[in-house]
């Protein structure tokens, strides 16, 4: 049988550090889409809390407990990250593994917000995007999920096939922001 070599989506493309921003790739962890069946939202939230210690997130929220995270990912959809879902959740929700479907980049540093402002059409300033925020939006023309755990750290999830484009666009913006800062 063939001996397959595991490769993360952005392997070889990062790290990139320019000016006050650093782009890296997050360690690959399980990512599961959790989508409640019709009328099961409350039961699912209770089951999530019992099994993983976190309720179903409100729109725009990122919840975390230990290494388990639960991010709102759209209407009636959350991503459970860092662990596989308890099998009891299957009574209330469609569970879909997406672990290797996403490129999970991390942009951090004092210039991170300025870099993202070049591509992202939502307000990521501290007042509009507090710690514990999850934003489903665009990075350039790419659909993305942006997580803000706090500080000046932003996590950018785009489809795996978009890894090269995402790193290229972020690198261009990092270079431009650094050039402006140097004027």
């Amino acid at each position, binding site marked *: 049988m063939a001996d397959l070599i595991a490769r993360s989506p952005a392997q070889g493309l990062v790290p990139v550090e320019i000016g006050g921003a650093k782009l890296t790739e997050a360690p690959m962890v399980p990512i599961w889409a959790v989508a409640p069946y019709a009328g099961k939202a409350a039961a699912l939230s209770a089951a999530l809390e019992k099994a993983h210690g976190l309720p179903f997130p409100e*729109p*725009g929220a990122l919840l975390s407990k230990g290494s388990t995270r639960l991010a709102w990912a*759209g*209407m009636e*959809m959350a991503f459970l990250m860092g662990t596989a879902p308890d099998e009891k959740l299957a009574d209330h929700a469609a569970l879909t593994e997406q672990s290797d479907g996403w490129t999970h980049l991390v942009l951090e540093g004092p210039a991170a917000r300025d870099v993202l402002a070049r591509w992202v*059409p*939502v307000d990521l300033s501290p007042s509009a995007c507090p710690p514990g925020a999850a*934003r*489903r*939006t*665009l990075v350039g023309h790419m*659909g993305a999920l942006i997580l803000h755990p706090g500080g000046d750290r932003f996590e950018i999830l785009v489809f795996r096939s978009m890894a090269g484009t995402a790193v290229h666009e972020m690198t261009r913006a990092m270079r431009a922001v650094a050039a402006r800062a140097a004027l």
Partner: protein
Amino acid sequence: MQIPCPLCGPRDIREFTYKGHATYLDRPAEDAAPEAWHAYLHLRDNPAGATRDLWYHGAGCTAWLVVERDTATHAVTGARLAREVKHAG
């Protein structure tokens, strides 16, 4: 232009796709008269003022919205989940 998504808050127009007038929510019954289907598919008003139309928040929460706006002033005055509008009758 921004649309106030009920789930995501105010979002830039580039996250949305336009569908057409909210008439699309009122699909005639399968056995409705041809005139009703003709009206549903083809007949639209062209108001200078308030109108309601369907937008898809495809680059955000993926909800369908009924957006209220004014064709004369370009003001966007509200948006609701299409599902709620539909189920409210």
